[in-house]
């Protein structure tokens, strides 16, 4: 039995590796085949002039621009909400928490990281109802609410990446500034964090990617099929992943379907770029860059 298994394992393992590569290749090929023909000036801006759309002078109707804008706005908002809290909590976890409170907190953050995104979205929606009822209908599902829910979704990742980055600092380096009379905070901000900036940046970029790709949270908290470019955080909005989902099930003709493909490609390009950026940040961005 063991010998037979030992014989078969390498072959099996090759098959798996090939299948995986084939799956990804098929996916990319299929998307490109379906979506590349749609990549032209009209894809983003429809019939509107690009400059008018970019300056928000005119609304875009048959293009991806509102969805792209919505996604970017939402991600920026979500990340700027999540990063300060996440990094602060990560610092607390790494440098201040200890004993049972650290165990309990990290258990809670693990649970938070594991909660399905649709449940986070559901809570966001529930919150919207409560707000709607208590603020006389002025608040409801909107860009800000999506961003809040998404911020909460990526919070545990940020906490964890900050915590592991700080805890990974070499003990010698950790003690160096302290022996020179640095306070705990000086040590954190002048030595530990700058020294781990690459990891921190990498973690943040991955969080951005997570925000950009999520569909389940936003479909409960304010994304709609058609909204144009939102002019305030309290508006409903369009987003790329939702656009892909929407088009996949209700395209009205080959042209719309092609736009769905193109949106999928666009979303994938954005996410892979972020991924490569995170990858490079973790490898290349050396902390000394910031000391010069």
């Amino acid at each position, binding site marked *: 039995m063991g010998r037979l298994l030992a014989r078969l394992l390498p072959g099996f393992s090759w098959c798996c590796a090939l299948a995986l590569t084939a799956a990804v290749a098929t996916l990319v090929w299929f998307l490109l085949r379906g979506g590349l023909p749609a990549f032209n000036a009209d894809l983003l801006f429809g019939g509107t002039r690009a400059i008018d759309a970019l300056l928000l002078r*005119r*609304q875009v*109707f048959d293009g991806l621009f509102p969805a792209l804008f919505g996604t970017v706005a939402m991600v920026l908002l979500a990340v700027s909400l999540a990063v300060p809290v996440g990094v602060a909590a990560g610092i607390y976890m790494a440098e201040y928490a200890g004993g049972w409170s650290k165990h309990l907190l990290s258990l809670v953050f693990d649970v938070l990281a594991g909660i399905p995104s649709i449940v986070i979205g559901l809570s966001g929606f529930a919150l919207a109802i409560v707000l*709607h009822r208590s603020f006389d*209908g002025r608040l*409801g*599902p909107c860009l800000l609410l999506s961003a809040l829910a998404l911020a909460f979704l990526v919070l545990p990742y940020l906490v964890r990446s900050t915590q592991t980055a700080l805890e990974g600092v070499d003990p010698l380096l950790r003690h160096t500034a302290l022996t020179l009379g640095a306070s705990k905070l000086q040590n954190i901000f002048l030595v530990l964090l700058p020294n781990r900036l690459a990891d921190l940046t990498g973690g943040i970029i991955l969080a951005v990617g997570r925000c950009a790709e999520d569909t389940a949270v936003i479909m409960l908290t304010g994304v*709609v*099929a*058609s*909204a*144009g470019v939102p*002019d305030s955080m309290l*508006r*409903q*909005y369009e987003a790329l992943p939702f656009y892909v989902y929407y088009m996949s*099930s*209700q*395209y*009205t*003709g080959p042209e719309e379907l092609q736009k769905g493909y193109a949106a999928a490609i666009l979303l994938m390009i954005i996410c892979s770029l972020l991924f490569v950026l995170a990858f490079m940040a973790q490898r290349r961005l050396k902390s000394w860059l910031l000391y010069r």
Partner: protein
Amino acid sequence: MFATLKKNIFLSLACLLCFSLAALPAYANDLDLFKGQQGVIKISGGTAHIPVMKEAAKQVMSAYPDIRITIAGGGSGVGIKQVGEKMVQIGNAGRKATDQEIEQYGLVLFKWAIDGVGAVVNPENPVHALTSTQLQDIYAGKITNWKELGGIDRAINLYTRDEASGTREVFWKKALNKGDIIASANVVVSNGAMKTAVANDPYALGYVSVGHIDASVQPVSLDGVVPSNETVKDGSYPVARGLYSITSGEPQGAVKAFIDFLFSPSGQQIAAAKGFIPVR
């Protein structure tokens, strides 16, 4: 065979016509309704309405950038509840709101088009006619193979809509005579999704707003009557319904302008172009 071909040609022509109509600019004076108006109009609910809403929103927002219109689906049930809870300004429904709903929320209903709900199959499917008994039996799970209906030997892939759907409610009441819908049927979330699903599945049976029927799906005649705008209009096809836009209380400002626009020649023309029967 010949009949199918003819129907297809007819449908293609109808589509072409629709496209050319949709490209027509709105009558300028109809858009004047929005002069001096601004603000946000949130619309949700009925999915049959969406193409009309999108086109109307496009025309309005192009001419008056100060007005913002957001459109979400969800189904008639969502539209009615959300407008009742004042989460949106206009709730769309493909069915009449119940008296209890109207009373509870103080709803005002505006019926701006007539629509039917027709059973549809994939264009490859040779079965083009069903009796209402057959349809009821299929949806109750008693008939499960196309062979029993004169088609090929494949299981019938049944598609239905979620409970919030007005289309489902109308189809269930008037075509299925309130018969059971088997729980194992695939559930899709909108008229658009239903059409897409049936268009992609050669063995599918679903039902969709008549306005959404185009060359990608084959309408199935019910007791000998093909669901189309003509048969719905003259009353020979029984599974008909109104398309409603609903407000909570009498509409004001931009919302009123939008409702009025739907009833204006431009609005009615959009409705016709998207395959519905205008009321005016």
